[in-house]
């Protein structure tokens, strides 16, 4: 065990994967010499060489498409797209090719690859560097979408993603890269893609979130606990496939749920989660499922970030309202 940030844990996962499986290779803009815009691939080109860690031309569609070809031919590529707003040129490759080759070939060809995308706001970067458009990936059949919020999960989930037989979009919450340190096991271990993690157990209310918003969600939970509310906190971790029964199990116990995400409200995953909860445990609900999300706006520039990002206060207020029902 060593105390690592989420960024260091991801670097450790890539290091472990590169050393353990010669089919694994990294590609992306500035991932080699520069070690990635967020230094997640720091030192890996020096350690494994330019035939394992490739700096690529600035061409997101090319990166995703080349990774697709490599994966079909038996490699395990891990591609990095620098920011979520830069991932859309690769969307055609992801939707039309990567996510559906298993379907198009009835399992003859598969694309077991990982596309890592740093995402989310709160670091004062310009608009395209800050958005949370995870729903556009979750909507694509054939893809898995994973978001860690702790260093330990980050390493275990990334290793599971690299070994997964299906393509995984791996979203990394930029705001949490260096926020906290945690004990992270050495060497290889996997955390199963799929199940939610019950981070805190409680009986009055379930708070459901993922990625960077786990920070505000935890703060809200502590504030609520301080006034005597017993809060269960779920870190969803895998956005596709969603652990519908895991969430329903918690809400059928507490009877109340608030879903928190940074992404815009309309078409966001909170809607899917709320629908899924009422389908499974409507009669256990003591109040309607509430949503605390970003607004239906373009992610703003630095000085307006405070207007946009859901705060612990907003979560607490939503929880109070749900508790009053």
């Amino acid at each position, binding site marked *: 065990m060593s105390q690592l940030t989420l960024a260091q844990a991801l670097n450790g996962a890539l290091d472990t994967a590169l050393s353990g499986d010669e089919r694994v290779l990294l590609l992306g803009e500035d991932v080699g010499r520069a070690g990635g815009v967020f230094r997640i691939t720091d030192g890996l080109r020096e350690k494994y060489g330019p035939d394992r860690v490739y700096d690529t031309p600035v061409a997101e569609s090319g990166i995703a*498409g080349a990774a697709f*070809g490599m994966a079909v031919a038996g490699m395990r590529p891990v591609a990095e797209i620098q920011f979520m707003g830069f991932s859309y040129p690769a969307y055609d490759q992801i939707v039309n090719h990567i996510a559906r080759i298993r*379907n198009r070939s009835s399992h003859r060809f598969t694309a077991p690859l990982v596309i890592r995308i740093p995402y989310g706001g709160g670091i004062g970067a310009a608009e395209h560097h800050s958005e949370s458009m995870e729903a556009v990936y979750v909507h694509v059949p054939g893809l898995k979408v994973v978001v860690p919020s702790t260093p330990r999960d980050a390493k275990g989930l990334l290793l599971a993603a690299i070994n997964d037989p*299906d393509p995984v979009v791996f979203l990394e919450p930029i705001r949490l890269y260096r926020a906290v340190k945690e004990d992270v096991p050495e060497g290889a271990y996997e955390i199963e893609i799929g199940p939610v993690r019950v981070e805190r157990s409680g009986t009055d209310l379930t708070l459901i979130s993922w990625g960077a918003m786990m920070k505000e969600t935890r703060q809200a939970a502590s504030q609520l606990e301080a006034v005597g509310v017993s809060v269960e906190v779920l870190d969803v971790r895998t956005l596709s496939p969603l652990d519908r029964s895991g969430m329903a199990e918690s809400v059928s116990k507490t009877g109340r749920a608030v879903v928190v995400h940074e992404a815009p409200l309309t078409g966001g995953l909170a809607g899917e989660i709320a629908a899924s909860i009422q389908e499974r445990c409507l009669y256990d609900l003591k109040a309607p499922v509430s949503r605390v999300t970003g607004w239906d706006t373009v992610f703003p520039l630095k000085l307006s970030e405070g207007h946009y990002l859901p705060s612990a206060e907003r979560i607490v207020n939503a929880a109070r309202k749900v508790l009053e029902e």
Partner: protein
Amino acid sequence: MLSFVRPDGTTADDLPIEVEVVRDLYARMVEARTYDDKSMAMQRQGRLATYAPFRGQEAAQIGAASALAEGDWVAATYRDAALNWSVGYPWRLLIAGRRGHEIGGRLPDGVNVLPPSITVGGHMIHAVGLAWAEALKGTGRIALTSFGDGATSEGDFHEAMNFAAVYQTPIVFFCQNNGYAISYPVEEQTRSETIAAKADAYGMPGVRVDGNDVVATLLVTARAVERARSGEGPSLIEAVTYRLGPHTTADDPARYRDRDEAEEWEERDPLLRIRLLLERAGLWTSEWQQELEERASSAIEEAVSWAEALPPPTFDEMLERVYARPTEALREQLEAGR
């Protein structure tokens, strides 16, 4: 433009390949055309979904395919059935796919051909990745990607060409310039003098060949394949040809091109010139032609019968081929939809 066999069947030089090889190429072109003709007819009868004919492009496709070795990768398009068949994609599966049966995309093990790309241009970079992986594994395999003149306008063409050159991947870019992107003539699609000329900008050789000359296409592709296999990197081939039929069974070429133009290209028919060449060498007879056509016909008909007799795809299969293992949601949908 490189060419070898003139439209009248004469050649500039002695044949650089065995005449038996030419006979075989001809036989394959006859079989491919039979497939194309029958597919058009079946589509009209409602037995196939929309069909994209390759009539007129048989030499380009079969010439290119014949330069490849077993295990080489092919990433081609919806119009490349002749090419794909030539490297092992069975007629049965091609027909099943066009009938709307997913099994059509399940290539037999060992046949390294991707299911035909439907969106234009996105597949070229796949061949770069395939070739890249084979180079890393040291297998000696290469990749060939086939696409039309229309695809060279896609940004993906640029990214694929650039990646291939940057990483010197063992790949052949095979462009069939058939004159039109559906209705849009190639002269209007680009201000480059030729498509082959675009290769210069990427730092790879670009060759223009008469795509209706199966011998020239084979030779040019074989040279590019050899280059790729020996580690000298990618090449671009522009095979100049013409789509004698419509873009697909859903359009009418009379709206966008002259009848005279198509008639002119009929005279440059890729099958005709080889027939004349073989006839001159005393290797073509009408009996042999009849035999070829009958053999082709029964091969295609057998494949059609096979495809038409397939059990229809099931609901369960549809939900079970999305992931390696169905997700919780898909398992529930399996239950709900049965």
